[in-house]
């Protein structure tokens, strides 16, 4: 990042005026960090559940008293049949025995170490026993999802649509927001109201006329309905960028203007460096939106399977009659990676504001 007019610098510069930590500060740090870790644990635990589900077979998901992690009861094979091994309390000790005959009042077990000794009858309900669990994750769920939906092809499509659309959104929305934030012209207020009002009508209702336009243009079955509009700005991102630009004081634009810089120069060398956090936010929003968009690609690409993105392919695991929860979540995990990596790269944009004098917020 370049230094913009000396007013602020990018995140890298501020990592570290390290100061000495006083005991009171350390206490505050500990309390806040601890609190945030606790909140985060609750916040993310469904995601952990999703990950564990992605490693299970359908049997493991519905297993009686199954643990949260993917586990199979230990099996014992004897005379061509397979039995589950349970932890059976006999004479004060817990023995791992194979259940060969289930009964309501009493059940028969075999000792896997000594099966020929004959069945051991145990009084009680076998349902009250815990199986002998063995941790058995099924990573092949991931390879199966990969193979079933032509993952590499769909991934390529998703990436291409997301990247092109993000470029379009960033370019068009920045220009439009700059126009709204920094130039005065008659009708500006009315046009801004109109811009915001375009998102008031629910998309379900405008879908049919919009789809009709795309049909007439011959764009159905191509990426154009998904890409062209991104180059023509959208209300959400223009509004956000405009709000942000309005928080930036004008001294520097004016100084640059006095130096003879034109509007494009000012945009490039004064506005953009200062608006970088908001632009990064818009870029991430559009990328994630495009990455996860399902209904748009579905409806415009239903006849062009080779052009579809991942979300359309993955939705097939969530049929109304049959869901494969493990496949859904495995697909989920696989699609999370790229947007999250992208965020990791761009997150510096959101690092705590500039430190010039060492005073913090």
């Amino acid at each position, binding site marked *: 990042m370049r230094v913009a007019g000396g007013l602020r610098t990018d995140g890298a510069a501020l990592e570290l005026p390290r100061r000495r930590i006083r005991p009171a500060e350390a206490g505050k740090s500990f309390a806040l*960090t601890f609190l945030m870790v606790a909140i985060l644990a609750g916040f993310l635990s469904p995601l952990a559940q999703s990950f564990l589900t992605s490693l299970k077979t359908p049997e493991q998901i519905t297993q009686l008293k199954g643990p949260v992690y993917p586990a199979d009861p230990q099996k014992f094979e004897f005379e061509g049949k397979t039995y589950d091994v349970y932890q059976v309390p006999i004479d004060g000790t817990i023995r791992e025995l194979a259940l060969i005959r289930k009964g309501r009042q009493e059940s028969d077990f075999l000792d896997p170490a000594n099966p020929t000794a004959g069945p051991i009858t145990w009084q009680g309900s076998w349902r009250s026993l815990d199986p002998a669990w063995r941790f058995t994750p099924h990573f092949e769920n991931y390879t199966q999802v990969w193979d079933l939906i032509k993952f590499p092809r769909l991934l390529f499509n998703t990436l291409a649509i997301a990247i092109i659309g993000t470029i379009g959104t960033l370019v068009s929305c920045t220009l439009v927001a700059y126009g709204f934030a920094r130039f005065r012209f008659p009708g500006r207020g009315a046009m801004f109201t109109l811009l915001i009002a*375009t998102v008031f*009508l629910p998309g379900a209702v405008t879908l049919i006329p919009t789809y009709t336009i795309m049909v007439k243009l011959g764009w159905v079955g191509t990426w154009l309905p998904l890409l062209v509009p991104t180059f023509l700005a959208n209300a959400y991102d223009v509004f956000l960028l405009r709000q942000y630009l309005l928080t930036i004081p*004008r001294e520097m634009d004016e100084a640059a203007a006095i130096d003879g810089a034109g509007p494009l120069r000012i945009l490039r060398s004064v506005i953009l460096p200062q608006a970088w956090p908001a632009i990064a936010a818009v870029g991430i929003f559009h990328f994630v939106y495009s990455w996860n968009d399902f209904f748009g690609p579905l409806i415009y690409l239903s006849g062009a399977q080779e052009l579809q993105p991942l979300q359309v392919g993955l939705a097939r695991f969530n049929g109304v009659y049959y869901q494969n929860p493990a496949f859904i979540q495995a697909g989920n995990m696989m699609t999370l990676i790229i947007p999250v990596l992208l965020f990791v790269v761009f997150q510096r944009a959101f690092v705590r504001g500039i*430190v010039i004098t060492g005073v913090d917020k």
Partner: protein
Amino acid sequence: MTQPVPVIDTGPISRLRRGRFRMTPLTPLARREARWGLLFLSPWILGFLAFTLLPLIATFGFTFVNLTLNQKEPLAFVGLANYQRMFADQQVWESLGVTLRFAALVLPISLIVPFAVALAINSRHLRGSRFFRVLFFLPYVVPFVAGLLIWQQVLGVGGWINEGLRFLGVADPPEWIHDPAWIHPALVIVGIWGIGAGIIINLAGLRGIPTELYDAARIDGADALGTLRHITIPMMSPIIFYSLVLGVVEVFQYFLAPLVLLNGTGEPNGQTLFFNLHLYNTFFLFQEMSYGATLAWLLFGVILVVTLVLFRTSRRWVYYAGER
């Protein structure tokens, strides 16, 4: 929107305040400025004319005819019949009521929680803020429907929320998704997973506050709360305003979660019959295009009124450092 006049005592901000309302006719210079402005707006103007205006007009036209998918009766102009039907439709008013009640619950939360988390992440007291940034962002990337399926399990029978509550001694935890009293809180909990976007917006806003203001505040002897009130919140007000307006739009158009979780039936006991769900059912399930479009224009009107009110009041509390 024009000149905000901050009435809040913004302390040091006032030093940065600038710009006066100028009521001059267009000079050649001003005309040049206007031309540049429209040039920068041109992508949006083009998109509006090409892809937005026609659908808007078409759906407005739908409201005066009797368009259905089946079209048993020939297509005809029906005047205001759709509007009459709408005003007599009890479900319209019930669903608006449901939507407003939900909005009253979800809007404050969706404004405060991401703001608070962003403040915490931005705080110098937090260790490892980089990890928190990434991890709070993480669920935002989960596709909405896949996220719903996870939460359905988490909130359901044997899910960890109720197991946790039982562990804490709650004998009879609620059946979240199926309990009329708990479904709105349940939907809020599910929605909290998407705060990643709000956190980013707030972090970007916090990043943009010039540090000088905090220096000045410290010199003035302001404590943490005073700084929050007199610097952070006023300086963040454009971002808060953005979140509020879009929050309103979003909550009035809310329908996907109840559609997926409860088949769009409005159960339990009508508590999820949101206005936009009623609209979606009318439009796609019952295939009544004209009546659905009429409902959509009612929604448009309601959101427009609320938004205009927000814009009016915003002049009193939103502070734009860079506006003229």
